[in-house]
């Protein structure tokens, strides 16, 4: 009996260990935001051609009104959509969402709903249906199938959970004959009428890394904080940063995975500070950036040169402390574009086949402007959400 109990206890312990091991690596972290391409060549996560293209796109003036960046497009190839044009204005638009499991997606989702209300009031679309797959590929595949089976959708918008797995589901939606709009993360098919996304992860990572290279003296030390390995969007940001850092005289102290957990970030930064100076912080996403800054404060160290993201908690901390920083942006206003694109397609207007939205980091010169515009917004809100002109502003985003 005694031995049996010990064996049971040991088995339970091993089970727990396995579970513990899993929790530190599970990719249930939602892949905050995303660009499309999967790893293709050479270094697993580095695609030289795509890298060059994204860096070049940063310098190209987008077409369209700069006051409405969600309608701008970089080097668009316009496609005719006359075949999808429908009479009337009560078209049903269906949206299959990967998830709303992080503040970036929550912010974008609110913006999209506000844009839908405007289009409904204008009589350009009718019913808006949506499903939330909660980061579950299988769930999203069945969500999309349900939209197709219902036969009610006049257009289907998809924000895919993952690239490869969702590709057949997107193809199914295309095959049903209704126009399909894909945005944020991509899929391995171009059957959608338009694929909407900001420039991409390489541009994000390079914006951040170039800033550190410019602002820090040669020989300075940089710590890279990353959310988790193996997620293409995040890996692209880091791959671009490595490319930039390799050509610089900065010393990269390490790259640490934090799970985006503020406590873990603060702990790791604190430990690096105990071992020596850290002059710069590079982050692959702004989640928990404030915790990294606080680690310097609590250790009595001067503020680092830092790249975060346009999340307001970080931007407010940046403003308060007067530190040298930049907020790379993964344009949150892209959530407005898909519903606008759907209504354009249903009216037979041209849309870009690949709709590349502008993606510009927020620099110190623009900091005050963006903080003013977002003064009422909660701290886990994204400055470039692009919804200031929508009627629900500011309450819809403030009272989330």
């Amino acid at each position, binding site marked *: *009996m*005694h031995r049996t*109990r*010990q064996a*049971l*206890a*040991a088995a*339970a*312990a*091993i089970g*727990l*260990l*396995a*579970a*513990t*091991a*899993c*929790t*530190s*690596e599970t990719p249930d*972290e939602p892949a905050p935001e995303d660009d499309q391409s999967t790893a293709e060549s050479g270094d697993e996560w580095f695609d030289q051609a795509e890298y060059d293209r994204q860096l070049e796109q940063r310098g190209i003036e987008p077409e369209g009104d700069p006051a409405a960046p969600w309608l701008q497009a970089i080097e668009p190839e316009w496609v005719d959509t006359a075949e999808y044009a429908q009479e009337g204005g009560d078209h049903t638009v269906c949206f299959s969402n990967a*998830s*709303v*499991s*992080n*503040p970036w*997606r*929550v912010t974008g*989702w609110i913006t999209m709903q506000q844009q839908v209300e405007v289009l409904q009031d204008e009589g350009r679309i009718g019913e808006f249906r949506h499903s939330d797959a909660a980061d579950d590929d299988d769930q999203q595949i069945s969500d999309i199938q349900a939209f197709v089976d219902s036969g009610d959708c006049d257009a289907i918008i998809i924000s895919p959970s993952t690239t490869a797995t969702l590709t057949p589901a997107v193809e199914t939606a295309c095959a049903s004959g209704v126009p399909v709009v894909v945005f944020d993360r991509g899929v391995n098919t171009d059957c959608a009428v338009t694929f909407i996304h900001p420039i991409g992860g390489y541009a994000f990572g390079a914006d951040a890394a170039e800033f550190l290279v410019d602002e820090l003296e040669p020989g300075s030390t940089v710590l890279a904080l990353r959310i988790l*390995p193996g997620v293409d969007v995040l890996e692209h940001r880091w791959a671009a940063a490595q490319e930039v850092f390799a050509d610089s005289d900065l010393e990269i102290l*390490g790259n*640490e*995975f934090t*799970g*985006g*957990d*503020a*406590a873990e*970030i*603060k*702990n*790791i930064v*604190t*430990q690096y500070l*105990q*071992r020596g100076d850290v002059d710069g912080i590079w982050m692959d996403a702004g*989640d*928990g950036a*404030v*915790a990294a800054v*606080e680690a310097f404060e*609590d*250790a009595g160290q001067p503020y680092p040169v830092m790249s975060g993201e346009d999340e307001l*908690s970080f931007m407010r901390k940046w403003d308060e402390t007067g530190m040298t920083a930049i907020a790379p942006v993964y344009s949150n206003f892209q959530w407005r574009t898909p519903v606008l694109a759907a209504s354009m397609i249903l009216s037979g207007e041209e849309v870009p086949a690949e709709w590349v939205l502008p993606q510009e980091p927020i620099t110190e010169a623009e900091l005050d402007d963006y903080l003013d515009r977002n003064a009422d917004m*909660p*701290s*886990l809100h994204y400055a470039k959400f692009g919804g200031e002109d929508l009627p629900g502003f500011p309450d819809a985003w403030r009272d*989330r």
Partner: protein
Amino acid sequence: MSRLRSAAAALAGGGTGTVFALLIAIFAVVAAVNPGFFEAPSLMAFLKQAAPLVILAAGQYFVIVSGNFDLSVGALVGAQVVIAARLIDGEESRTLPVIGLMLLFGAAVGLANGLITTALKVQSFITTLGMLLVLYGAIRLWTGGAPTGSLSESFREAGRMGIENVPLLGQIPWALLIMLALGAGAVQLMRTRFGRVLIATGDNELATARSGGRVDTVRTTAFVLSGLSATVAGILIGGFAGVSAQVGEGMEFTVITAVVLGGVVLGGGQGSVVAAMGGALTLEALFTLFNQLALPASLRPSVQGAIIIAAVAYAARQRRLTSRKPQREARPLTATPS
């Protein structure tokens, strides 16, 4: 050697010696890699950051030693931080009322766990797994997916600040003082009749009930204590690093690992609360060591797993040897079938 062994056993019924030996060994390696770690400021920073897990381990100890599990603590820690941020929303004046509310909520979650387990006879593994999911889902529903609001400066005081300018030490973190106070409280509690009945319950439920121990009451109380410890841990973690959507994720497994590492037997009846807290400290030291060694992230879980299995197996072997000694039979209420 056998005297040493029985000394360790006398302290806590096996395991205590192992966990503190392991802690010293890990610290020795840390010191070799980075002697600066043992300077006061960095040691204090380590203790500040380790305090939440240590407190959580004390709470989990009560539940485990009485023969149950509490898997809901990680979700509860996360929920508490999110609740605090949303209700305080940056207003200093709301800090104390919200902390009061959080303590009530933590106790209520513990009470629900306890009553469902004892009165409805649902296995605690299932009860608390269900509670984990309920909390996780309810918080997602309530916040629309991601936390909102912000914590006040005074809320963050406990987890982030401390007594400043102490000679030699620099800052003594509040978190460390809270940890020591709660730890001492837990040790005292285990010396009362409640503590003895709790261990006896985990050891042999039937015999305890027949000899007049209120088995269901102490077990329910253990869950309430665990809920309260998760609340305090939430206050400290939120204070330490602020709000993020990932707070508390996976902590239930980390803390159960810590308690087991401290030599507390799953299934109940054996182990000391000091060792459970020592297990948490050891686990945090291990994480620190991994950082100091710059061990690749992918390798860490495996190394962590191997070390913990080895430690627990060693403690179990020790316990098997010491359990043959007469002192164990001398303890009242331990009519184990073994």
